[in-house]
């Protein structure tokens, strides 16, 4: 597939590896003392500034892979590295955004967003100014003093994104972030996420089970098989940016990607049907 010449290549030096996942396997012990292989020998390199989606049926271990990169879960075998250093735990260079939002219910919107900078030792006044800017950027100006319970799901996820962006992670780890939202809100948030991403081109690792969402957002889609999770194929999405959803839907290249990946998923889903 040819890339349009008008496609603006990001102005930066040679792409360097931001995240390396090196022969990672993950086994969980279930209650009956049975070992359950969730991830099997995954190797993947994610370049700095890339938007990479991990796509697969539920139970394929895609979230587990994200948690390993986050440092929340340590792999049974293999190693994950960020900027060449082995990951031993969570750190502010990798910021998670969860499907469940996981906002602190006892803090206001501003309090939630300020938490990271304050934790990094940024002075209160400065952290507040930064946070207010971020809240405005995610479109929640005027809601600074609201509590999470007073916001809709989409607004909560905007706060969660602002909270993570506030401590300037090099990598955004997004765990089905729009999975709990209605279709309309989901589309708006996808657009807004892309707009924000276009500005500073952070590395994004995005877990989803929506083919459509993966193709629309990503540079690369990693398709996984059902348990045990293995990488089935990596698809480079060579669509021009900035992307407009309404235009893309009519674009035959976009449609082709979607259909191609749907087929791969169909194959893997059938595996899962066997008893």
């Amino acid at each position, binding site marked *: 597939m040819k890339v349009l010449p008008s496609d603006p290549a990001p102005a930066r030096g040679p792409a360097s590896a931001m995240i390396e996942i090196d022969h990672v396997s993950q086994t969980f012990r279930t209650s009956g003392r049975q070992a359950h292989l969730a991830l099997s020998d995954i190797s993947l390199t994610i370049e700095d500034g890339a938007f990479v989606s991990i796509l697969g049926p539920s139970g394929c271990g895609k979230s587990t892979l994200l*948690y390993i990169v*986050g440092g*929340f879960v340590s792999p049974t075998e293999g190693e994950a590295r960020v900027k060449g250093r082995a990951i031993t*735990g*969570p*750190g*502010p260079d*990798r*910021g*998670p955004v*969860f499907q*469940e939002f*996981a906002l*602190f*219910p*006892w*803090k*206001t919107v501003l309090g939630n967003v300020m*938490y*990271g900078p304050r*934790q*990094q030792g940024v002075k209160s006044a400065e952290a507040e100014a930064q946070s207010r800017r971020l809240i405005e950027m995610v479109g929640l100006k005027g809601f600074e003093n609201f*509590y*999470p*319970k007073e916001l809709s799901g989409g607004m909560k996820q905007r706060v*969660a994104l602002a*909270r*993570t962006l506030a*401590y300037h*992670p090099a990598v955004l780890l997004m765990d089905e972030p729009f999975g709990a939202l209605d279709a309309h809100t989901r589309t708006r948030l996808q657009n807004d996420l892309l707009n924000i991403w276009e500005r500073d081109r952070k590395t994004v690792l995005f877990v989803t089970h929506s083919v459509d969402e993966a193709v629309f957002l990503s540079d690369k889609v990693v398709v996984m098989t059902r348990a045990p999770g293995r990488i089935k194929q990596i698809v480079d999405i060579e669509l021009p940016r900035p992307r407009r959803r309404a235009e893309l839907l009519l674009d035959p290249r976009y449609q082709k990607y979607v259909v191609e990946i749907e087929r791969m998923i169909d194959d893997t889903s059938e595996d899962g049907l066997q008893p």
Partner: protein
Amino acid sequence: MNARALTSDILLGVIPIALAIAVWQGISSFGYAPVTLLPPPGMVFSRLVQQLFTSSFQHEIASTLFRLFAGFSIAVILGVGIGLAAAASPAVNAVVRPIVRVLAPLPKVALYPALLLLLGFGHESKITLVAADALFPILLSTYYGASMVEQKLIWSAMAAGTPRRQILFKVVLPAAVPSILTGCRIGLVISCIVVFLAEMISSTDGLGHMLVKAARTFQAVDMFVPLITISLLGLILNGLLQGLRSYLLRGFPEV
């Protein structure tokens, strides 16, 4: 709509209380029960109001409240502390869990004679009994709340750069506050009950002692006064805790 529903709820709730007082009044005014057994409500309440302004009655209330608060505070400090520690550390958990399992269903009132022998008949034995009784609901709900904290809340804080040892105070404790307050509410009611009982069993002052003193001389009116007082105290304290709760939990979703 809500306000109106609330008003009608309150009106409906007043009916059985009014009814109870009316029946009470009826029984005594139609002479079904002699005044020595069941004094009419008007007599009891006027006695209560009259008593409220005497310094001796104020003294009784003060000593009851002192024991109640002292015991309750000890229970809160110990309960929240041990509960958090048990949720945070598997080693502490392994020790605390079986001990709590044994001590929680133990009827603490039965320990009171031992407390009397060990700590004497003063404040100490009563405060200890109140603390021992209020401790377990607070401890258990703290432990329960702290071990139920959403994993992703902790992950979010860790990713933002919170060191592991700060997670307990920055995330687990605030997230467990709703559950802790539920425990405190149960603990407070228990404290009211236990302090009164302890004073009934052995005391020289306090509301419980007033009841026993009145019972010895068959003064039915004076028996009702301390009972109504403790009920009102319970309601007021519960209201205060409820106020604190809605302030502290203003961010949390309604349960």
